């Protein structure tokens, strides 16, 4: 049922005509996030400029029981910001101020629309930085990072968003405003801050975030090493960990992923190697140099065929550019692809990669692998051609890979979230009781089920009659119209 005109008027009274979008040409911009296969055009898009206005919008929604979906940059990969039919999208991009950088307390206070990289940019003059670094950090927002508990390449040593957020100002689904967390790690009672982090927009909308900043490490050492097999690379990671070294990051790419990334960026990866490892250490001069020598020795011991040490900050940036561009670059070698995000215990990496390869062969589809080898977080990219009718096979393979990770004692998702994409796989990881209790916690925050409904937890409607992936309109295929 479409929203009645008087309700739209309430939003207009609050925000003004130009910040309430209802023209389908404009609202279509918000029809999906990074999971582009699922699309719903929202009824209205609200673009508040202040936290008060966010609360005002939510209060209107609560009064009329209108479902709402918060949205940052829309880079999420699990459909967490997919609009709800007959609902509104609350876009937070206009709350984009760095409110405070406090170098003495090593923290920053931010509005949700500030991008991840802007935090470090604001902190850098003080010799500080913000640690979590998702690959999309140039555009993704801290509000979205909070919703997804974002990780990144460096979370092996430094942890995830939840380890770096001190407190949150949150608009609850009834429109009330609360602070979760505090100015220190001491809190009054249960860690509701931690419950909210990673709740994928289902428990409220964050309007202010206080994050910890870290001092920029004295030195960073980055190497790129080629190996004759992914298994050999995996053994290097195990030996590094066994040596008691905690690297800042350990990333692995297989031949297919390297081909894509190198083609897109020319970052200097070898095109003829079955596997490449990026290892980064940071810290004090003394510790870093000693451990870096150990890491190089471990690489040699496992048949490293080429070892390139970044000799300058530019070379380091180049190595990372290749790695972080990998997802998008896969578009060069396949018309369509699905990114997965499963996690396995690190010691089972080789085993799971063999199984994935076998599953890909069986499905007749290629799978490129880019992953955070240090923490067992895989990003298999299932390559397919929708035009050749491979979509359903690819989706089945992709879900199968995620559930394989659970079977191996891991998780459906390491950092991309469950959203709509993996909600129907949740019963593979959690029991009926576990999910029912999560739903009770959700009801404590959102008794009316208006806050990003249909995400994170499986529902009969979602999993019984799941909408298909986006398929281009015949006119679009004919080149007569284009995707907006």
């Amino acid at each position, binding site marked *: 049922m479409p929203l009645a005109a008087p309700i739209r008027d309430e939003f207009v009274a609050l925000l003004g005509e130009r910040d309430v979008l209802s023209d389908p040409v404009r609202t279509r911009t918000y029809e999906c996030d990074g999971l582009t296969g699922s699309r719903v055009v929202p009824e209205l898009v609200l673009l508040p400029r202040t936290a008060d206005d966010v609360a005002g919008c939510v209060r209107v929604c609560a009064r009329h029981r209108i479902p709402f979906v918060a949205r940052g940059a829309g880079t999420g990969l699990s459909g967490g910001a997919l609009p709800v039919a007959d609902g509104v999208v609350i876009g937070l991009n206009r709350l984009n101020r760095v409110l405070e950088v406090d170098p003495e307390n090593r923290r920053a206070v931010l509005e949700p629309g500030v991008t991840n990289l802007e935090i470090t940019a604001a902190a850098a003059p003080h010799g500080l930085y913000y640690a979590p670094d998702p690959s999309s950090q140039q555009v993704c927002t801290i509000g979205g990072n909070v919703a997804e508990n974002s990780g990144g390449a460096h979370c092996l040593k430094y942890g995830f968003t939840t380890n770096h957020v001190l407190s949150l100002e949150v608009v609850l689904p009834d429109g009330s405003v609360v602070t979760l967390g505090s100015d220190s790690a001491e809190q009054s009672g*249960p860690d509701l801050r931690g419950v909210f982090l990673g709740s994928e927009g289902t428990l409220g909308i964050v309007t202010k975030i206080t994050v910890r900043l870290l001092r920029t*490490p004295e030195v960073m050492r980055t190497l790129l090493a080629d190996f004759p097999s992914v298994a050999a690379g995996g053994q290097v990671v195990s030996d590094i960990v066994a040596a008691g070294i905690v690297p800042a990051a350990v990333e692995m790419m297989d031949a297919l992923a390297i081909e894509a990334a190198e083609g897109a960026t020319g970052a200097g990866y070898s095109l003829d190697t079955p596997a490449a490892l990026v290892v980064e250490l940071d810290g004090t001069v003394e510790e870093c140099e000693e451990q870096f020598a150990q890491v190089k020795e471990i690489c040699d011991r496992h048949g490293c065929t080429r070892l390139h040490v970044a000799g300058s900050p530019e070379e380091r940036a180049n190595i990372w550019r290749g790695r972080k561009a990998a997802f998008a670059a896969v578009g060069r070698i396949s018309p369509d692809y699905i990114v997965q995000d499963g996690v396995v215990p690190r010691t089972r990496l080789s085993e799971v990669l063999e199984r994935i390869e076998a599953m890909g062969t069986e499905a007749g589809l290629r799978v490129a692998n880019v992953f955070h080898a240090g923490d067992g977080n895989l990003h298999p990219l299932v390559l397919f051609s929708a035009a050749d009718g491979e979509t359903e096979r690819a989706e089945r393979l992709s879900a199968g890979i995620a559930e394989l990770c659970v079977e191996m004692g891991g998780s459906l998702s390491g950092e991309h979230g469950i959203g709509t994409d993996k909600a129907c796989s949740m019963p593979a990881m959690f029991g009926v009781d576990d999910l029912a209790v999560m739903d009770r916690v959700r009801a404590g925050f959102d008794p009316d089920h208006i806050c990003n409904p249909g995400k994170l937890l499986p529902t009969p409607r979602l999993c019984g009659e799941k909408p298909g992936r986006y398929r281009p309109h015949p006119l679009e295929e004919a080149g007569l119209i284009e995707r907006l």
Partner: protein
Amino acid sequence: MTRAAPTTLRPTTPAEVRDAVLDVPGRLAISGAGTARHWAGRPDAVDATLDLSALSGVITHNPGDMTVSVHAGTPLADLQAELAGHGQRLALDAARAGRGATVGGLVATADAGPSALIYGGMRDLVIGTTSVLADGTMVRSGGHVIKNVAGYDMAKLLHGSYGTFGPLVEVVLRLHPVAKATACVAVDGPVDDAAERVLALMASPLEPIAVEWLSGDPGRLLVRLEGGTSTLPARVRRLVELLGDGAREVGPDAWDEHAALTTGEPGRAAGVGGAAGAAGRDAVVRIGCAPRSLAPLLGRLPATAVTAGLATGVATVTVHDASVTDVHDAVAAAGGTSVLRDRPADLDAPAWGAAPSALPLLTAIKNQLDPEARFAPGRFAPWM
């Protein structure tokens, strides 16, 4: 059903915990080693106590993955001894671990020690939990992998819950390697002086693991470093130089005094008259605020003993029991949080400072998970 005398139940398996919750009607207290029995709100009368100290032991340790799952009643000290054989540890150095505190108890009380500066507290180290709700539901969240965002993180809800949502039965933890070498540098001086040194220290690249000021005459700043056997001495020299006049390396037993002051153990805290807890009329309050606000705040408190994390903003202060309310008020005025820990058994002082803005939310979640308010009544009095 009200019982004449409260029963104590000692389940030895998760299933027995669930059965106890289902079989015993009425209100339940939860205890582990009993080291935080007097912390937070004083428990109201209950029908039975669930003593989880027999629910103990490692379930699975995966050294290669650096994770371990344990029964909630496992004493942390026992776990550390077992992990040490693999060169691993839980990076949590809460003082009361030395008195037998259990893993579940440390989670439920959100306790942490000086190394929380780098490693965080239990909220950062727990990666999975199984707990039992009032209706007997056994609920699992998280898992056995460090990186995992699937589902709501129930472990966070249980962190600092003092049992109000029910007993933890299993906890999965992420581990860290044991440091190859550890060193401690001390410099004497009052808290304001220490705070300025810490400001310079935290702007340096030296990566201290723990930074704590201890009260005394004139007080002492302790800084812990961890590193390689051959590399640490050079960093210690840099640290001594940075901290300036009077700084020198000291032995690890310097931390024993810190632990004693933090736990308010009678007789162990040097220079503190009338120890906290059972022996005297002192009370221990845990406080937290922005790190740079801590030293000025401490200056306003009528404390008889203090340990202060000048880089974390978390401090443990001992005061005469009549001053507890003053401490709550002063901390709240500085934008901080405070909770009463050890105190005389008959002390009638508020356990918590000002109620948080999220109290209605906390109450709503409590109503969802424990609608009859069976678990740990009184712990959050007077809030709920």
